[in-house]
């Protein structure tokens, strides 16, 4: 069994509790032992960065140090924001000019650790092929949009995973579950989550664009691997609809929930009931050909004033 230190981050304790739950279950199913970092602290996220980069490095670094103390050489976090901070801590520790200050604050160096996202862990340690073999409940007939968000594979030199402009890891994992993953042009576009509270109109504008494109491609759901993207597109979907004058009704499940579903795990155990937009459409069994005919292109009816709507959005009307 592979032992991986698990840094869940603050979001997964509150608004993204279902991401935590499904991550643990899916990892267990594939024989990955997650060791939650004892007494972990917040990585400081963007606010720490813009205060002083060393603050961010020290806050994130403390968690890495505890992981190393627990005999782990790999740290996984499901949150791309946390991952960025963890990688920043490693970089600071390796920088000869800042190394001393870092070690003084954290108590030790954090050399030799590998930090990965949940998506990278699943893609590289489990792989699409193994997932395909383990599928119990194929999601054949469902159209799921892979949305990576801005930080998961960027900046390329630091993330060192997949492609910064056109990542494909999540596409492959979705396809392994039997579902269809269309080419999504906004895979790595920023959803504006940072400004959920402070500039809600940004969220309406940027989130609206993403939901709109997903609906146009016939997506039934947008699959994400970031708690901030998820909250933004799901919890704030009503706010987005208000701003965008639209009526999107797209569930936004986590990749771990989709994989768990395909593995035949109970949707409630995966926390699918915690999503704000009901993911009921994902539970339909479409593996029988006659049910394929009932397939609904998208759970979306375009609003009367959908900005820039293409020909009234006929292409996304339920068939």
């Amino acid at each position, binding site marked *: 069994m592979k032992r991986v230190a698990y840094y869940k981050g603050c979001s997964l304790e*509150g608004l993204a509790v279902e991401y935590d739950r499904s991550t643990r279950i899916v990892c267990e199913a594939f024989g990955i032992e997650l060791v939650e970092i004892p*007494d972990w602290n917040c990585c400081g996220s963007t606010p720490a960065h*813009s205060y002083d980069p060393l*603050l961010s490095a020290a*806050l994130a670094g403390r968690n890495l140090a505890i992981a190393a103390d627990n005999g782990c050489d790999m740290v996984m976090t499901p949150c791309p924001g946390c991952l960025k901070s963890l990688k920043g801590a490693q970089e600071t520790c390796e920088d000869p000019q800042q190394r001393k200050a870092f070690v003084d604050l954290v108590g030790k160096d954090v050399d030799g650790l590998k930090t990965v996202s949940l998506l990278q862990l699943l893609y590289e340690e489990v792989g699409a092929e193994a997932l395909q073999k383990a599928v119990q409940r194929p999601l054949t007939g469902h159209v799921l949009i892979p949305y990576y968000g801005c*930080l998961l594979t960027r900046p390329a030199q630091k993330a060192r995973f997949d492609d910064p402009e056109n990542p494909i890891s999540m596409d492959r994992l979705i396809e392994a579950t039997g579902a269809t993953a269309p080419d999504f042009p906004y895979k790595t576009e920023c959803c504006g989550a940072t400004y959920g509270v402070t*500039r809600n109109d940004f969220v309406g504008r940027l989130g609206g664009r993403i939901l709109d494109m997903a609906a146009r491609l016939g997506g039934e759901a947008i699959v994400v691997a970031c708690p901030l993207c998820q909250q933004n597109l799901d*919890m704030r979907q009503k*706010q987005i609809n208000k701003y965008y004058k639209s009526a999107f009704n797209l569930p936004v499940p986590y990749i771990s929930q989709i994989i768990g579903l395909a593995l035949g795990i109970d949707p409630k155990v995966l926390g699918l009931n915690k999503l704000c937009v009901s993911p009921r459409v994902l539970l339909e069994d479409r593996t029988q050909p006659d049910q394929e005919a009932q397939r609904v292109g998208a759970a979306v009816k375009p609003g009367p004033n959908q900005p820039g709507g293409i020909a009234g959005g006929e292409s996304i009307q339920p068939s």
Partner: protein
Amino acid sequence: MERTNTLSIQQSRDNDFIREVEEASGQTVSKCYQCGNCMASCVYTFAYDYPVTQIMRLTQLGQRDTVLGSSSIWLCANCQACTTRCPQNIDVAQVMETLRVMSRKANTVSQRDIRVFYDEFLRSVKTFGRVFETGLLPVYNLRTKRPFTDFDLAPRLMWKGKLSFLPARIKKRKKIAQIFEVIKRDRFSKDGKARPEPLSSQTDI
């Protein structure tokens, strides 16, 4: 907003500023040849006072006050689109990050509400070791005099059992608070010149 007078721009040129930005960010800002890829990639250009290409140019020209007082550096979401597409391999997002840090130190943050949100976020981390989501919002709302921000979300989140009413506190909170104190003490001395944070209505963590 006061626009920069481009005819007399050399008079307000601050060479120290260029050096400080390049040193702190580790990026050679002078390599930028103004192709505009960063601006075209940036989804926030619509909200900026100076598009990111111009921030780069103004930095090359040593326009400290204009750059550090701009709204752009605080509306940047650090999404890395500019960095990914820069043909000169400049980490533009890192430059913007450095400018934010400098603007905090110089107390020229143009977006008060964003600063308040960040301050309260850090205060939560310093106090509990983790962010207390449910507690953060009401404090922010009070301090920015927008008491009903996001209240529409509360009933549904309560129904879903996602709101906690007690903060999760870690055991070694003292260690976290200590990290904050050391950083606060040392963050000006790193520049080589001791500049205490000016006293003003803007609070600190």
